[in-house]
Each structure stands twice: as C-alpha cells, then as structure tokens.
C-alpha cells in the first residue's frame, strides 16, 4: 500500500514530502479542464464530419480537390519562404538584443514586440496604408513595372513575416541569453574570430531554441488570416488554408472547411511535437 502511494507520488513528480493542498488541487483541476476543452474542440470537428457521413474516402476526395490542394500548397510555399526570411532577420536581431547594450535599447525592444500585441488585422491595414502612399506607393509601382503585384504570394509572405517574426526574435533572444558566454571566451582564446565563435559555438549552443522559435514562427505564419483578408484578398490565386476555410464556410461547404481545418491541426500538432522534441528538458512524461 505504502509502495503504491510512493509510486503514484513519483509519477506526478511531486517534490518529496509535499501533500495535496488547495492550490495544487485547483491548479491541477484547471489544467485538466483546459486540456479537455482542447481535446473536445479538436474531437468535435472529427465528430462533425463523422455525423455528416463524411467517410475517409470522401474526406480524401475533398482534400484532393484542386482548390483545397492549391490552398495547402500555397500555404506551405509561402509559410516556408516566410520561415527562411524570419530566421535570416530574427537570428541577428535576437543576438543583438541579447548581447549588446546601446542607447534606446528598451525602446527598440518594445517596438520589436509590437506585432505580438497588435491585432493581426492592424498589420494588414498598416501594409495597405504604407503601399497606398509615399515611398510604399513608389515601391508598389516599381513592382508593378516588373510585372509583380502585391496581391500575390509576395503580399502573403509580407503579412506572414510581420505577424510571425516577433515570436521568433523573442525565442532567439532567449536562446542566446541562455548560451554560456564563458564558452565564447574560451573559443576566442583558442583562436576563433568573433564570427567564428558565433558560428562554431554560440549558434550550436542556441540551436534548439532557434529551431523551436523558427517552428513557432512558421506555425504562426501558416495560420495568418486577418491581414490577408485586408491586404491580399481572397482571389483564387491567393487562397491559403485560412482564407480557403473561410470562403468554404461562407458558401456553406462546412465539410470542406472542417477538412482543411483538420489538415491545419495536423500540421500544427506536428510542429508542436518537433518543438517539444527540440527544447531541452521537455519530455512527454
């Protein structure tokens, strides 16, 4: 009996000697309730398809339709392009915020965080305003002269980039903060240049956090909806998964919308699994 109690105690990782008390009961209960809400929300989409007699064959047929496949493909192309751009910008910016002290640093840090707290649709409005006047207008004309338009994958990537980059910068900064600077000093003493130290020591030390930040940014990018509705629109050439879902819902094709939603869920789940696998100390137990 005592052995069973000990085993139970080990399984829930309670510090030795602690007992159940009001705080632990309330917090654990809320945690379980929240996890149940998420499971119910996901399960209800599957349940909807099952109760409306959408068989696995019909489900696959929906997914293989040209419009849905096109949406998934464009989502993947644009979000992966965004991921590359986000990493190119976020890694040096995160490093600068982590390592350098300079006048106005707190102001810049606040500005970097602005896209996290802004309603995403505001980013779409801001892009509309920027490309409608002044310098932005000239850039738009220049792009049009070269045969490019902003109501295309370019506009989608812009929206995804602006919505997701701040999350990645936060994650990269935290990773660089956690990387042991004494190891950088050792590398310098062993003959590395500052760039060599960054490449050979700092980046590998921060790798897990950087990849996790990139994946979180990608997951954010692939789910962007509001700014796309405002800045890019919902034309057939610019339909990504979120806009395709909304369009299908608006014309009453609820099964199709749910099918796309399940694909989004599967992608997000895979991304979270990779994040859990990459971040040190995170386990499934």
């Amino acid at each position, binding site marked *: 009996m005592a052995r069973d109690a000990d085993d139970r105690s080990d399984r829930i990782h309670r510090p030795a000697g602690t007992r159940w008390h009001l705080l632990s009961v309330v917090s654990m209960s809320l945690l379980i309730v929240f996890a149940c809400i998420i499971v119910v929300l996901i399960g209800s989409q599957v349940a909807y398809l099952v109760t409306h007699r959408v068989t696995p064959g019909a489900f696959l047929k929906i997914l293989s339709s040209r419009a849905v496949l096109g949406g998934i493909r464009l989502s993947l192309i644009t979000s992966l392009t965004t991921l590359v751009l986000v990493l190119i910008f976020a890694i040096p910016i995160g490093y600068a915020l982590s390592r350098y002290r300079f006048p106005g640093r707190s102001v810049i840090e606040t500005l970097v965080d602005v896209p996290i707290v802004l309603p995403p649709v505001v980013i779409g409005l801001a892009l509309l305003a920027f490309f409608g006047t002044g310098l932005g207008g000239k850039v738009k004309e220049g792009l049009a002269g070269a045969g490019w338009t902003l109501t295309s994958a370019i506009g989608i990537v812009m929206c995804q980039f602006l919505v997701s980059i701040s999350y990645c910068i936060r994650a990269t900064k935290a990773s660089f903060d956690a990387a042991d600077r004494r190891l950088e*000093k*050792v590398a310098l003493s*062993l003959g590395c240049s500052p760039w060599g130290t960054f490449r050979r020591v700092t980046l590998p030390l921060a790798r897990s956090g950087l990849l996790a930040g990139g994946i979180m940014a990608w997951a954010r990018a692939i789910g962007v909806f509001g700014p796309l509705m405002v800045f890019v629109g919902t034309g057939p050439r610019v339909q990504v998964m979120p806009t395709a879902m909304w369009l299908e819902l608006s014309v009453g094709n609820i099964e199709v919308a749910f099918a796309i939603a399940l694909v989004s869920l599967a992608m997000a789940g895979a991304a979270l699994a990779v994040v859990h696998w990459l971040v040190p100390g995170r386990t499934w137990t």
Partner: protein
Amino acid sequence: MLRLRDVTLRAGRFRLHPVSLTVAAGDYFVLMGPTGSGKSLLVQAVCGLVRIESGSIAIDGKDVTAAEPRFRRVGYVPQTAGLFPHLSVAGNITFGLEVRGTGRRQALRKVAPIVQRLGVGHLMGRSTVNLSGGETQKVALARALACDPKLLMLDEPVSALDEPTRREICPLLNQVQRQFGVATVHVCHSREEAAALADRVGVMSAGRLVQTGSLADLAAHPAEEAVRRLLPKD
C-alpha cells in the same frame, strides 16, 4: 615571457589598480587572493577577453595590449573548464587547431602526445557531458595545450574538484607544465595548492597585486594584512 606594466581596468564598480608583473619562461606562477580581489579579471585581461583601461601587456617579448585574443597564443582554462557540450572530447581538444585550418585527422595526430600525456585517450570518442570532474579538467588542459601556447592561464582549475581528484590533478599539472615548458599563471585560494605547484606566488587584494615572491618569503614576511591572512605562519 609575460610582462604586465601598470595594467588597470574597470568592470562595473570594480577597479583593478595598476598591476605590474613579470612571469619568466617556464615559470609556474600562482596568483592567490580572496574572492572578488580581481584575479580572474586579470587573467581575462591577459587573454584579451576584457579590455584594459591603461598599461601594457607583452607576451614572449611582443606587445599584445591591443591584440585580439586569437593572436596572443595564450591557453585559457576557466574555473568551470568550459568544455563545449556540442562537441565530443576529441572535437574539444582539436578545436583550436581546426579553427586555424588544420584538418581533423592531422589535428588528432598533432594532439596525440598531449592526449597520451594527460591520459585522456580512452575518452576521445565520448561526449563531454558525463565526464568526471578530473576528466573534465584534463580535457580542458589538453585543449589549451593543443594550440602550442606561449602562456597558460589557469583560472582555479581544481577548485571545484574533490580532494582525492585534486591530489591527482595537481602533480599532473606540475609534470605537464615542466614537460611542455610553458609559462603558467594559476589562480587559486589554497595554500596547499600553491605549495605543491608554485615557483613564485602573487597575492591580490581589493584590485591590487600586493606582493610577489616565493611562498616561504611571503609567509615569513607578509607585506600586508591581506597576505598574512591568506598565508598565516604555521
């Protein structure tokens, strides 16, 4: 080999007052002093890892005051050993040679005598994560020696070790230093450690190098209370 002339620096509120010191080729110099006296900062200044405010640093007759750490040829072992967790033991030991353009195979051939001398050959393929304290320090020392340094700076290399391991590492440090003939500055708190290793001893207190000489001289004729407290007469 090492010549410091009126070196000063600031780090936050801490100030290192003008330090002048000479360590001859092949000498084993032990730098002692209480925590916060500026020993580690001085070591890092010699390595070029912190910028000095004034004064000059010369190594092997060359003024390196403004030189980047990579051009100073100083082997540095911090208190925690500072092994790279993403590299194997072999990757750590050959790191300095590889960053200078030596291929891994050639680097392994070059470090073989050092690896053999320190007895870490059986660890080469292992990760650094699960090494014991003694093994960690030996690997860090091998890595510092692999680059053929003119000067070795050891910042409390055995402080974190248990007594038996310390008793094993100290004679090894002495033998290796004699064999490779590299001038060494070794930071420590322990009189026993200094007695086992030092040709000469320096005592720092509150950012000043207050006295240098043989351990017996310092113990017999302490210049200040700080030296007397650190090296009390038996």
